[in-house]
């Protein structure tokens, strides 16, 4: 990327709560610093201008409709760098919970006899449709990581999401482990980078940043079973966020 002209940045959203964009908007002064470095040319939630000429696209949300597939492909073709922003875009998040049912069934539950008016396909992260260059995990996308990725892009650096579990950050912050309170925590198999925010506030980790590269789900089952949970319930816990790819949980369970 040349420094003469500022890189052009666009924000897009697919099915999601738009909390990630909102987090970016809440960067305050840092947002002004960002605007010094790049030109934001498209951001529907924040501005009326639109441009189909951009270098870097931040995309939040899951792909849940046929039309989304076309749209994300177009964005991919236009942008040099595509960043998936937040859990919906990186791992499917709650959107993909519906994938456990048939699409007809979920449509019927929510829309009843009007179901046929709607187009919905199993929800998937952006990387399941087009290649993604950078990802920011979290629900909402973690701001420190967003800034790190932003700086990596501008410096032409690769960014590898940390392949360490949340426990690491939890320990670095000298938190009390929530297991010591008799609560369950998905931290040991969840990719860190959130600065262990939930556990730092005494809550459990729900796994919003996705699983680490090689989670020991075997150990997870063992430990969770100690809390009297059945295998389905354990899988259910993982599935609050981790639903894509469909079979990854079962597969990794069987190879332990």
């Amino acid at each position, binding site marked *: 990327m040349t420094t003469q002209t500022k890189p052009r940045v666009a924000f897009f959203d697919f099915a999601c709560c738009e909390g990630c964009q909102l987090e970016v908007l809440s960067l305050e002064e*840092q947002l002004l*610093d*960002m605007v010094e*470095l790049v030109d934001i040319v498209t951001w529907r939630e924040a501005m009326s201008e639109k441009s189909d000429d951009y270098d870097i696209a931040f995309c939040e949300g899951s792909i849940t409709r046929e039309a989304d597939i076309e749209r994300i492909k177009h964005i991919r073709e236009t942008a040099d760098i595509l960043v998936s922003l937040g859990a919906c875009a990186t791992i499917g998040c709650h959107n993909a919970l519906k994938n456990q049912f048939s699409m007809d069934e979920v449509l019927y539950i929510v829309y009843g006899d009007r179901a046929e008016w709607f187009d919905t396909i199993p929800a998937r992260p952006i990387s399941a449709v087009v290649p993604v260059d950078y990802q920011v995990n979290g629900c909402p996308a973690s701001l420190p990581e967003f*800034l790190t990725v932003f*700086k990596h892009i*501008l*410096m032409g650096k690769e960014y590898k999401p940390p*392949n*360490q*579990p949340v*426990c*690491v950050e939890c*320990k*670095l*912050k*000298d*938190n*009390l*482990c929530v*297991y*010591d*309170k008799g609560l369950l*925590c998905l*931290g*040991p*198999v969840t990719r860190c980078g959130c600065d262990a925010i939930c556990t730092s506030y*005494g809550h459990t980790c729900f796994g919003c940043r996705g699983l*680490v*590269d*090689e*989670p*020991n789900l*075997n*150990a*997870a089952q*063992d*430990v969770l079973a*100690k809390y009297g949970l059945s295998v389905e319930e354990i899988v259910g816990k993982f599935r609050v966020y981790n639903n894509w790819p469909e079979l990854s949980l079962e597969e990794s369970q069987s190879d*332990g």
Partner: protein
Amino acid sequence: MSICVIEHDELCALVERLIRQWPVMGPRQRKQQPGFYYFDWLRSADELVWDYVTTTLPPKKAFFPPREPFLEFSRPDPAKVRPITDQGPFVLLGVHPCDLAAIEQLDIAYSDNAADGRYLANRARTTAIIGVDCWPDEYCFCTSVGTEQARGPADLFLTPIGRGYLVEVRTPRGQKLLGDTAQLLATDEDEADAAYFRSEKQRRITAQLETTVEQFADILAEGGLTEVWQKVADRCYSCGSCNLVCPTCFCFDINDDINLDLTTGTRIRTWDSCQLPDFALVAGGYNFRRERWERVRHRWHRKFLYLYTQYGQPFCTGCGRCSRACTADINLVEVSNDLIAYAQREKRNV
């Protein structure tokens, strides 16, 4: 050096005085979780808890912080790289024998060879250390590694007795620290009280390694324990908690954090763990300890074999933190005893 007695109120006044003079770190109780403690900077003497069992992180965080920015840089020419040294001296209170032993071990490891100047400078800021004898729980096994009476770098060491604390004044600095604090002469009764406390403490330590540390090192050096390692690895999350809470672990990572101006930033050192999958991963994708069981083995080897051979003492002080912290319930003593039993069994079979 000398021994005296100090009463509760006097001790409290001493702590207040120290807090006025220096930043003071000591054990505190967790807000929402009674019975759980952590080391933190104290605002007043009543936050300090002397009779605690253990803390989540060891007191090394006072001079070896989990995340320590140590260099400031500015990229454009003329280049500027400046060490970050804006901290002053501090005092560390309420350190148990196992943690005193651990500080001593870190001092040795970090002074060895090319000394780690950063660490030593931080340790040099440690104005004083006051140790205190402890209240063990079922995870403690210091008697197996010989640290139950360690005093290490303590300037003062306190043992609880009926009328307060028996104070071992171990350094001239400790003497100065007491200053005009009222000190009573230790009577025979005080000494007997302290001896009783010690024996009572020993009695309460039930976890135990089934061999001496020498023999354990031999067993590990002998090898052939893969089966046990793999069994442990089956349950291990590789989350690194065991290393990160260990008072003697000292591995770290170094990373740069650049500011949004893309020209200035800091270089940061962060505690690391050899159990994390990417610890020995190099560019090109080679991972020199790729298998989980290899990492598990490395942890034991490093503590009880390599560093033991290098420095003549195991780098484990029996504090039990790793076993308490393990979310998969892997217990260092149990696994060690499994290894010992397995090795003995194998030997018999040969």
